[in-house]
């Protein structure tokens, strides 16, 4: 009986620990952006759990919490954060009904037509067997040329979660619609390397690369999806 009580006590104590040790998806990335003659390199880290995510890119941290309906953008250096509501984007109003006052045609949102080509070329990147896709997005006053190396290996730990997370992040992003087109038709696909040359309407050409360095399932650090204490909230001014 004593042994039974002891075991129950152990399970009782282990149960919350077991919850905390749930395997989340963990990814490390390496990015570079070449813009106006300057290359900036950034290391990134990502934790994904159902309905929540934690992203660190350079000095910025983003935490997304579907259960609270918010996203926090944290600047640890300044000890501050901004809070944004997570909400479904309303469908864009038809042009004929648009409010002329707010029809900001100087704030140009390109409507890209995407052409995707599966080149058939394959190679291993960061330990993942990948396939090369080329994408071109053409809009009236902008264009994007991209190369995506895609892994389609089934049962890669974290692969499906990463795919779903990325698709969720880019669903309203016109510049990333080429990626969405590739991923949405492939259940096991996730991007290992992307290289994009973005020709904006006015701004100089931007070349950006992001490589997935590591992908795994692992227990997330405790409280990582919570807003750290002691930060000052600042207003979002767009």
């Amino acid at each position, binding site marked *: 009986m004593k042994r039974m009580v002891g075991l129950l006590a152990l399970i009782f104590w282990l149960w919350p620990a077991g919850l905390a040790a749930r395997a989340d998806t963990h990814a490390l990335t390496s990015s570079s952006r070449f813009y106006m*003659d300057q290359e*900036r390199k950034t290391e990134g880290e990502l934790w994904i759990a159902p309905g929540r995510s934690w992203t660190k890119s350079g000095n910025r941290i983003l935490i997304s919490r579907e259960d609270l309906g918010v996203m926090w953008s944290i600047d640890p250096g300044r000890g501050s954060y901004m809070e944004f509501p997570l909400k479904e984007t309303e469908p864009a109003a038809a042009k004929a009904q648009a409010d*002329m*006052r707010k*029809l900001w*045609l100087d704030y*140009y949102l390109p409507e890209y037509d995407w052409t995707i080509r599966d080149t058939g070329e394959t190679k291993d990147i960061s330990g993942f067997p990948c396939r090369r896709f080329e994408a071109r997005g*053409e809009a009236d*006053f902008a264009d994007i040329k991209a190369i995506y190396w895609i892994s389609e290996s089934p049962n890669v730990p974290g692969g499906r979660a990463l795919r779903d997370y990325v698709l969720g992040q880019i669903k309203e992003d016109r510049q990333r619609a080429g990626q969405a087109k590739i991923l949405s038709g492939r259940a096991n696909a996730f991007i290992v390397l992307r290289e994009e040359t973005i020709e904006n309407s006015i701004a100089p050409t931007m070349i950006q690369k992001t490589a997935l360095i590591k992908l795994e399932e692992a227990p997330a650090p405790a409280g990582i999806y919570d807003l750290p204490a002691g930060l000052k909230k600042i207003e979002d*001014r767009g």
Partner: protein
Amino acid sequence: MKTQMKIVVLGLPLLLALSLSAAQDKAPEIPDAVKIELLRIEETYNVLDLAAARVWPGWTDYKDYPFLLNFENGLRVLVGHPNPPEGFVPVPDLKVAGKAVHADVRKVEPLRLEQPLTGGGGITSYGELNGKPIQTVDISLGRFKPNVEMSGDHYRTENQILLYVHELFHCFQKEHVQVPYPNFRYNPDTGFASYSEIEGAALEKAHQTADPQEAKRCLADFLAARALKRKDMEEYDRRAESGDEVREGTAVYSEVRTLEAIKQGFKPGLTPARDPYYGEFKDADTFLGRYRERLAKTKADTFNYLKCYEYGCFQALLLQRLFPGWQEAFAAGPAFLDEEIRKRIAIPDDASVAKRFEDVYGFNAIQERHRKAVEQRDAAYRMITAREGRSYIISLKPIRQYLSGFEDKTRKSWSIGLMYIFPDGLGPVAFDDVDFSGTTIPTETNQLFYVKVVDTDWKTRDKPYALSFDKKEGDDVYFNAVLTTPLFTLKAPKIRIRADERRIKISILARIKS
């Protein structure tokens, strides 16, 4: 002084010489026109040594920011940059107020630079030092445009120096005059345009009168018109508009205050012998008068939602005249000019406002004029966006050529943001070795660099275009090309064509035949 557009095409040898010299890390040869521009930056420092403290308390950092000069031929020059990005090589025999000069000649076209050169630009992060971005004054310089010349506004070096003062004040703003809101974007409707004109007229009257009480009465009108204009605007837009007035208005104010300081006594460092377009600010009053002219012109413009330059400047000038010390509010953190006025002057009641607006400013006639203009603009927008068919889009972005310099201002046009609608088509555009025949089909120009025309009869055409050229490179680049479409003809030394069934995109890659 009558200026003429001058262009001299040089042969390939100079281009090769420049490239070779860069490749060997030898000092590139810098054209005289560029050296004159550098002298103007030096003279800007001289001007600000005199004026900066009178413009804004504590403005002393004007020599701390590098300049990036982008010339029309592709030459780029950096002045005083602590860590020039790759491609820039030192020009050891040139200094600007003791600051190093670097040049990047990798993309120079065989187009000789000659003064007068005029420019525009802004502040940008260019390069890094110890991981920190470098705030840089980024200026694009091109030939003085014929349409500006036709308006009688002759080239003067003083304007270029005032532009540099303006941009350096933007650098100062970063830490000292904070503007937390992004740019205002708004297409005026009748109400906005009408009350906006009253705002401008009230500022004008307040500035003109020597009587402080009358000036304050006019500022009350300004506040009342602003309140009525903003009745249906979102809070975010209101703040963005006021923010732009701080950002651009105080920068224009820095120009005016600089001129006022110069009037009190100024010793030029630059001479007309070294820069023939420089009049040493001897006629400072003429330049000061231009700001009043600009206010008068801008206030009545139906579609200009960026009146922040003039309105912000004149609010600041009136605060300075009527309420010295007003800048203290900005030292404490973000502040708005209109709010500073509001703190000191009450808005009159609604009943008296309507009568005064009609009696003093003729509000009903103003409103009727703007109503007609807005109706015409909206009709033009509906017309151009309803055109469906095959689009032809010409891009001047690769050669950094804005279209605004070439648009025929006598043609009927309507603007919505950066979109300009030409219901009767765009006239011919010719520069260097580029020749666009023009078209009578409704045309839009957009995003500064692009022309777009839509062929609604495209299904009846055999081919979207005919093309002749001297040489082809890769799949889509053509040299000395003549592109003939059903709507227009385009001749250019080098173009890229990317086409699908409904969209033909033509990028002009060179302006001069090589």
